[in-house]
């Protein structure tokens, strides 16, 4: 039962992950953005556990638990606290309008799928076709980072990009060695904390979290 439907379920989760990445791209509200990020983390947790169960790679269970603790509970909680403390209620503003962003997103997805196709044909893992989706999520988060003008969506984009990378590792090679994965998780956590501190400081200096204020340093 599990061996039969497991890979199909992994594919389904992969599709849901991509769906969530697109939902984040089209989302205008800050609170929903954080919830979507948490949901993406949760799908990632489910996928990783499923892959672990399918392949018997026990270290993946630890990765899954790490994902659950870090990306579903801790980071969304920090982000929620952050927007409560900063009393942010505004909508997310975008630099390019959302339909254009989505169109660019589609182009990126096609690009990612094309790029990943020759690689996934070589893979022997049950989850091989998910590599294209992982790459697409990375690129979509990247797109979100560069099209949003506010600091917090950029941070969420950064974290979502890491989600995509984690998924790529799980899907293509059943996860990186544990020591590397721990290191990456540590970097992400520290990075998120530093960005959180920065957000307070930017707010203090500029009286706003709009990174469009951060455009004084440029070429003449």
């Amino acid at each position, binding site marked *: 039962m599990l061996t039969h*439907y497991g890979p*199909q*379920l992994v*594919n*389904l989760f*992969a*599709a*849901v992950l*991509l*769906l969530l990445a*697109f939902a984040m791209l*089209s989302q205008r509200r800050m609170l929903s953005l954080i919830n979507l990020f948490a949901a993406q983390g949760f799908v990632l947790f489910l996928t990783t556990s499923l892959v672990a169960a399918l392949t018997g790679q026990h270290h993946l269970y630890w990765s899954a638990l790490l994902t659950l603790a870090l990306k579903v509970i801790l980071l969304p909680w920090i982000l929620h606290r952050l927007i409560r403390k900063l009393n942010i209620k505004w909508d997310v503003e975008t630099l390019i309008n*959302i*339909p254009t962003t*989505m*169109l660019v*997103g*589609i182009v990126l*997805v*096609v690009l990612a*799928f094309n790029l*990943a*196709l020759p690689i996934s044909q070589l893979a022997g893992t049950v989850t091989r*076709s*998910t590599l*294209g*989706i992982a790459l697409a999520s990375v690129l979509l988060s990247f797109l979100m980072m560069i099209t949003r003008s506010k600091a917090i969506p950029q941070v969420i984009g950064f974290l979502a990009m890491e989600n995509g990378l984690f998924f790529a590792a799980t899907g293509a090679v059943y996860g990186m060695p544990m020591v590397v994965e721990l290191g990456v998780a540590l970097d992400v956590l520290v990075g998120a904390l530093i960005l959180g501190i920065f957000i307070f400081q930017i707010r203090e200096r500029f009286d706003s979290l709009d990174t469009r204020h951060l455009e004084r340093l440029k070429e003449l």
Partner: protein
Amino acid sequence: MIDLAGVAAQFTELMLAILLAPLLTGWVNQCRAWLQNRSAPGLLQPYRTLNKLFQKEVVLAHGASPLFRIAPYLIFGSLALAAAIVPTLDIDLPLNAAADAIALVGLLALARLFVSLAGMDIGTAFGSLGARREMMVGFLAEPALLMVLFTASLISGSTSLSTIVHTLAHKEFVIYPSMAFAGVAFTMVSLAENARIPIDNPATHLELTMIHEAMVLEYSGRHLAMIEWAASLKLFVYSCMGLALFFPFGIAESGDWLGIVLALPALLLKLAVGGAALALIEMLSAKMRIFRAPEFLGSAFLFAVLAMLVHVLLES
């Protein structure tokens, strides 16, 4: 050779659709009322409304052309035909040879065309405004709907709805991730096409926002009844199409009566759940400005395209 039993089954299915459609509308309204914490008008209210309208006298505007008078019947007719070819109870019926996805979209477009023409026929400002908006929504929703159907066709290798249902429901159960995307896109399209929140509000006559109601303002009496009934039928067609694509389980395979009888409770149950879900979606979302509608439907189209891409990547 005309298969008499088949024709009878087909007729039963069609009559069932026509008769059940107002009930579905009533059920959705009932759920909405419950969710909004008000007392519901009763499940059978749409029938009572239709009955009342049929008994009323028809009042025609001065400039009304014959088109205005026959449009309600054409609309009702094309939607009834659409209801007949969407697989609801059985996939082995005489008309199912014509149950092609593109034909279905064409029938829906035909209905929309006549609604819009009738709306413009009198020449009032509201009619033209509603018709313009309706055409805009349709123009954006149709490609998305086609893409959704094509995704399903890619899976089954045919644009015939019967074959699609056969592949999805009666072969070995396979999870299709592309259908997750297609499902989201289809839901968005159905909301727009059935004049539901967040695109339109069926329960209001607030002039600045209405689309569907603006076009049918001039209708009265039995004409209005036909239009209202056709609107219910449209919701029914879309619901059944969604059920056939995404939850096809329970639809009978061969045209025997036992299968049809067994398929009926399954259909009713699915419709009840689907209607409640529709009410919930309407409750949870806010009506968006008309200028946001292209964005909403554009997203639906993109999701449908993504569904095809995901299908190419994951399932081929």
